[in-house]
């Protein structure tokens, strides 16, 4: 079980959080102007990387805030945590 450093509350057990999939997938501003393929790209396509991945997490049983995490899915090492809307601190 990880320890996650919520940017609003500090370090807490993973059991307080829930994962919300890949980060930095922006909902298109004008969905109606997209082709089926373009919309499907937004809707369905996710990378699911083995290695360093950018993810969304939610402090469900805490402050309920969403934030972003850079995590290595192969060993669960968390490289960075940053607030929604912020640029990733690492590439």
């Amino acid at each position: 079980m990880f320890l996650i450093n919520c940017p609003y509350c500090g370090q807490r057990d993973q059991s307080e959080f829930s994962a919300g999939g890949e980060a930095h997938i922006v909902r298109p501003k004008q969905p109606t102007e997209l082709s089926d393929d373009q919309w499907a790209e937004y809707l369905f396509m996710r990378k699911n990387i083995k290695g360093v991945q950018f993810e969304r997490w939610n402090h469900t049983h805490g402050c309920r805030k969403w934030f972003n995490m850079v995590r290595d899915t192969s060993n669960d090492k968390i490289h960075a945590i940053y607030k929604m809307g912020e640029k990733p601190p690492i590439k």
Partner: protein
Amino acid sequence: MSKNLRITNSKFIDQTSRISFKFDGKTLYGFKGDTLASALLANDIHLVGRSFKYHRPRGIMACGPEEPNAIVQVGSDASMTEPNTRATEIELYEGLEASSQNCWPSVNFDIGAVNNFFSPLIPAAFYYKTFMWPANFWKLYEYFIRKSAGLGKSPTEPDKDIYDHRYLHCDVLVVGGGISGIMAAKTAAKNNFNTLLIDDKNILGGTTLFQENECFKINNSYSSEWLKKEIETLKSLKNLTIKIRTSLAAYHNYNYLLARENLTDHLNINEKKDKIRQRLWKIRAKKVIISTGAMERPLIFNNNDRPGIMLSSSIKKYIDYYGVKCGQRISLFTNNDSAYEAAISLNNSGVIVNSVVDIRDKTNSLIVKQAEMLGIKIHWKSSVVNTSGYKKINSIEIMKLSDDGTAVVGKKIKEKCDCLGISGGWTPRVHLFTQSGGKLKFRDKDNVFLPNKSELDQISVGSCNGDFELDEVINNTVDSINKFLKVNNNDYENLEIISSKEINKKNIWLLPSDKPLGKTKPFLDFQNDSTANDIKLALREGFKSIEHVKRYTTTGMATDQGKLSNMHALGIIAETAGVKMGELGTTTFRPPYTPLTFGTIVGRNVGEFFDIIRKTPMHDWHVENKAEFENVGQWKRAWYYPINNENMHEAVQRESKAARDSAGILDASTLGKIDIQGSDASEFLNRVYTNAWSKLEIGKCRYGLMLNEDGMVYDDGVTTRLSENHYLMTTTTGGAANVLSKLEDYLQTEWPELDVYLTSVTDHYGTVSICGPNSKKILSKIIPDLDLSDKEFPHMSFKNTLIDNTKCRVMRISFTGEHSYEINIQASYAKSVWEKCYEAGKEFNITPYGTETMHLLRAEKGFIIAGQDTDGTMTPVDLQMDWIISKKKYDFIGKRSLYRSDTIREDRKQLVGLLTEDPKEVLEEGAQIVSETNKQPIEMLGHVTSSYFSPNLNKSIALAVIKNGKKLKGQKMFVPMKNKTINVTVTDTVFLDKENKRLNA
């Protein structure tokens, strides 16, 4: 039984307090401090079970968690009996009852032993190969296999014991209280680290605790004496917590560890009473020091599995610690120096040591010299090629090894013995290290896997890190701990250490015999009965990966998880396949290290604490009025209220009729309620619902449908505009939490610019729903001041009002199609309002109804239930609810998906109504629908989603989803059931009051 196998000078066993216990129904005696295994051995009982496949007699082999054979069932009480426990880990207590598990009908007469004579016919994967086909034969085999396989009996009644969970945070966790663990814990605690030391035994000290041998001394004392003093000093350390009888079960990432503390298993029945049996510690440690030691390997040779063949270090522990002689004429067989420690201990305790058979060339380490001085005979460069004795070993055959070690030569010597100690070297216990994600490296000189890289803040010290000599253990532990904790500890520097050093190493994974391999039985996995031959067969059959060989031969897969012989399996595979062991790698060790009981895993979360139970404010009224309840998520909802001996159908028919004929009352408190405020609240609703919200007048209510981004219906409910920037949204009961999460997600991540605040108020209000043609009269009795005229208070509107000076909100909304009201009031008043309504309604025969009637009534009106009539694959168009999709809005969640090529397909499943040809025939929900009955295979066109007998229409009605259903209205279809086929007609979804006249009745 007259044999006296107990020596009198054991320091650890209290020979003044005798304990009686039962094994296989027979009353026996042991002493306080014994394990079940040591007490059995003291009673000259070696035979404790039968092997899994061949049902060969098997005896106690070890003294710890690696024991493969002495697996017993403890207790006979139907609620407390526990299978798969190791006799070597059970502390003896007055009244203990245990029985052999791996035998049927009895340990001495075993029907499955017939398999042993047929064993050439039972090669590796015998079970897979034989029972694969024909599939239905399995039923026949299963009975016999299960009965004779000896997997233990589960308790048949709920566990009466109490279990507990607790969290623990520490700076340093030390796992294992042997010599290196004690040094580590003391150093950490003295340097102000908040330290926890755990050990699975009932006493600290590991194997050094009973090491009284001239070859192993510290500062002129036996290493045991030195260590005992060290343990004494631990007591004064304030930062140190010690937990004995506590075994580490799992080591997870981020130094999160689970340990099981055994609190009462060693107590007698009366002392156990009302106490917590086991506690699961959930430990978060900043730093972890693993000092779990090593376990001795067996040797793999012909017939190496007879009762009386034991690990030499275990024989040593039984004599030095428990004061129990495992035999009276003991032989030893080894490839390293450890067996000599056992030989010397036995000799000093007056046991006859026949000889030590050593596969190595003559060596002259300190300890070997000492053994020779004591006159112990040694067969150098020799091997045991066979053993005899059916229920107990009675002799061994010894031959010289050839120079290359691949064959035996010369003449055979027969040696009588009643016990054989074997030692194949040592395997560091790296299980916890690998569980934590650590990678291993291989050390060629003594064929061991050692901890290498880890991402976590942890180290391994002592023999689990590959240090086997006393001086190495001490010096390397001090160095590692100082570096790891960044301290400079001098306590253990400049110690004067005497330690016998092993000079000569030799290893042969599979020892040769004078017989061809196929005629021998060299066992590898004692519990699963796989031999070296099975491994070789698997390799011949083309298996290469260690994980595949393991599964094919079932080596290492029993309850002991191959603790003893995993290394030999790897060694034989590497040798046969011609690869290096380091390259072959090892199989994964999975948690738990030793099995946990279910009780420990669930802790206090049993019975009513298994899951959260949510009750509405009116719950007690429902109970008093004999409601049956159904679980909806965590909620207990009144399902129906049977009167006298009504069954569910009868009650629901009565309730449904009453609600439409006069008045019904429903507890709707469980519906999710979300308070939405902010200057952008209307815009927010526009984006999350399919229909338009900006123009909804203050004081009005509107039904909304919420989609997922993929266009599929997600949830629905009525939302009320309380004021300009204030809405109250309702959701389905089950969807409440997820809807809130979803809305928060969009607000925080996609639309942070919106000024909107969401608060869950589900629990804050109780909701009383009264419906039916007399609902208006009832409400007017309760709130006489409120103008209930259709003009002032029309359908889909709301009023703030007072009941007995308490503020409440009354909505005129309907899920039944009847004229109805929902009163929302602060939860603490809800029960009294409910009772008021019930009292006021009595003259109109107001009838409480539950969820089942609610479902029936809405089905008559063709209203969907999200989650029953939808399943995450239905768009609003599929539901024939096109009317609720705003054409004007530029965007809302899921809009774009409504005209993807897939969602505009005409042949999607669409919601329709169904009427049965026989109006009395009620369809089964989930039943399949087809268009013809004589074609095979027949295409399933859809299924029934909701089905009831409607008392108001006096016929059966159903909702269903059918491919292209919209165009099939009026068509005949078929619902094939097990014994008959039901004829149905596709209809509209609304069965009752299509014109909605009743809403204003």
